[in-house]
């Protein structure tokens, strides 16, 4: 898995945004990660703790929200959420169509960060 590389990217983005402000430390970072991602939250935090040593983001807590998987029905264009375990077996609640296109569920977004 590539938690380490992703974490490095998160840290770089955070430090870039931190640099433009007069702050003493980053307290918490809010992330939105799509439900389809296989990344493990605890490993991201673990790597983050390691990589952020000696930076403004040292000891920052990662608050991860999982963004739901949304699909759109091929037949009637209705969009709806599906659970990760149901992705392969979902059908449109409107018309029963099983051909569905993924709309969201793959994102990795840094929403904002709390700083002091």
């Amino acid at each position, binding site marked *: 898995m*590539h938690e380490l590389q992703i974490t490095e990217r998160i840290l770089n983005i955070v430090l870039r945004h931190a640099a433009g402000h007069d702050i003493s430390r980053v307290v918490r970072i809010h992330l939105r990660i799509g439900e*389809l991602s*296989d990344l493990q939250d605890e490993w991201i935090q673990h790597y983050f703790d390691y990589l952020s040593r000696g930076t403004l983001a040292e000891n920052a807590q990662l608050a991860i929200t999982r963004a739901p998987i949304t699909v759109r029905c091929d037949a009637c264009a209705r969009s709806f959420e599906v659970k990760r375990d149901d992705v392969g077996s979902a059908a449109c609640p409107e018309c029963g169509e099983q051909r569905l*296109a*993924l709309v969201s569920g793959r994102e990795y977004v840094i*929403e904002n960060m709390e700083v*002091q």
Partner: protein
Amino acid sequence: MTNEVRLIEVKEEIHADNDRVARDLRAQLGEKHTFLLNLMSSPGAGKTQTILRTIEELRSGLHFGVLEADIDSKVDAERIAAHGISAVQLRTGGLCHLDASMVAKGLAALDLDALDVVIIENVGNLVCPAEFDTGANKNVMILSVPEGDDKPLKYPLMFTVSDVLLVNKIDYLGLSDFDLGALKQRALRLNPRMQIFEISAKTGEGVAAWAAWLQREVRSAIGG
């Protein structure tokens, strides 16, 4: 008031850098009239053999190059090069996937003006490569019969991002309880636009139909 907690809006997609490099790469390759194919599968599904069969089928009309990604070996690149095909080995040094900047680095070692198609043999892994845009025109995945027909349920993202599914090792079908119909149904539910070809890279069965599809895609992308 330095102790007061403030909120800084970031709103940045973590993969934005990679996506930008991938877009630039696609534009660059378009100018060079080179088609880039990203081939993904688990280890041992038959990527290298499939590449060799595909090139054998099409090499009279198209010039191929291969980017071989491996965590730490060059056996696949040597196998490709032994067939007189330009091959570059990318050692990912433990990393589980290729990203667009690694691909760009590999492509720099190939003479793109002399090549119509470059095939990336991604790291053998059904999880991580699915998350990174490599800059390829098309994503192709292989699932081999011995792996089982339940893989779309376990690795939905890979099936979602792939344009083509090659079901390889169909010469094993009679020896297993692999249900081809169930696999197709599961794959198409995740990705209704997915093209599915059944092949045996070992015997060559079914390779012609897949190669014909690839040739059409290449021609429509690069002309000629």
